[in-house]
């Protein structure tokens, strides 16, 4: 299927956020794709936006079925969460389960004043009552496909689809 260009979608996402987000908002990217986007957005948007990283593996609801994924990264939040305005950043919003896990994890670090959600692609298919505050593009993707973001050596982002590892609902990484 035809996917939008990742760099153009990122520019569109930044346009939607510009003027809307708090000047001191902290960006928290969900590994791996969300982390890349959070870093780029922090450079593109006006204001001071420190970037943190979150790996939601320890908070996922599919651990019973899938176990622990091989490479868990370290959650790194180099700022205070208590009372902060947080923009959670992910590459693809799908079932909403990663975002649920990320919000749970954030609360174990403190009580944020506000959490917004910015995603590059909203592909629909939600299984939880979660919506993006900002989305670069919204598109419909068949259930048997995953949308995957990659980053080239020069930092350029690209989108592709691949066969979903598991078609059952709620298993999508997003």
């Amino acid at each position: 299927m035809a996917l939008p260009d990742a760099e153009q979608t990122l520019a569109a996402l930044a346009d939607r956020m510009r003027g809307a987000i708090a000047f001191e908002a902290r960006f928290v990217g969900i590994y791996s794709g969300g982390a890349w986007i959070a870093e780029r957005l922090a450079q593109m948007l006006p204001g001071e936006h420190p970037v943190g990283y979150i790996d939601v593996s320890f908070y996922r609801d599919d651990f019973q079925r899938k176990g622990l994924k091989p490479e868990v990264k370290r959650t790194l939040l180099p700022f205070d969460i208590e009372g902060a305005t947080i923009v959670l950043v992910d590459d693809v919003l799908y079932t909403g389960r990663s975002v649920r896990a990320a919000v749970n994890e954030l609360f174990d670090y403190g009580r944020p004043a506000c959490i917004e959600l910015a995603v590059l692609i909203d592909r629909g298919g939600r299984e939880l009552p979660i919506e993006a505050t900002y989305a670069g593009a919204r598109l419909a993707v068949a259930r048997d496909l995953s949308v995957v973001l990659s980053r080239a050596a020069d930092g350029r982002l690209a989108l592709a689809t691949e066969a979903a590892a598991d078609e059952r609902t709620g298993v999508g990484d997003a």
Partner: protein
Amino acid sequence: MRNPQLDANGGLTHLLTLEGLPPEVIVRILDTAVPFASISERDVKKVPLLRGRSVFNLFFENSTRTRTTFEIAAKRLSADVINLNIGASSTSKGETLLDTVDNLVAMNADMFVVRHSQSGAPHLIAAHLNRTGRAHVHVVNAGDGRHAHPTQGLLDLFTIRHYKQDFRKLTVAIVGDVLHSRVARSLIHGLTTLGTPEVRAIGPKTLLPTAVQALGVQVHHDMREGLKGCDVVVMLRLQNERMKGALLPSAGEYFKHYGLTPEKLALAKADAIVMHPGPMNRGVEIDSAVADGDRSVILPQVTFGIAVRMAVMSILAGN
């Protein structure tokens, strides 16, 4: 025969020994322990990974430290922990080990952490669970006889990697009572599996196993000679009961020859780290000036031990 620790897909389902474990399995545990280490630094030292699971600490041999670190690790994973002091219960009434296990499985145990004075007891339990189609109940060896103490070996490996990065460039000395030490055996297997070029066993002839070279280590009876050029010095605890068995003349004599003093440590590399599995006998195997000195990483070992045990339990519970 399949390794009883691994499932059909090569996933770790019990942790009984580091001997024979593929290097990628060991590296995955060490890698997974890194993010767990940061959880213990938070205000909320807990993740919901094992919520609702029941972990039974089955300690047939006394241990406060190991049992406590397993308990902390399980609790930080949100599991329910049940401590059984078996010495004081069923076994003394005549129940067999496997009957005890079957009863606890009937109570829906998800994981057993087993410490036993008999080498092979955790293996017996794991084999029993595998054979009776209950391999979803996991076994972690928390020390069996003189055989193995794999989570201690893993936390030692984690500590060494934390300070020294690449095993393939290191010289590691293990000093003391290697003969009776399951800690030493587990560490030696881990180090050789990860490609450590030089592992030395240092101790008196009476405290080194006769064929210890077969494990891939070099033997030294002269500690000063053995420490030369080492990156890591691992001191083992001298168990007081060894003194009675005529293996050693006296604690003072032992300290003179095999106690780690600042003078002896100066023979190792200038940036060498000093490790000890605890509990320490100050003035017997280690001088206080070394134990409390800036090269000592003995307390970080304890902290890392919790993260490593969290990693082991979550990898097992996910397989």
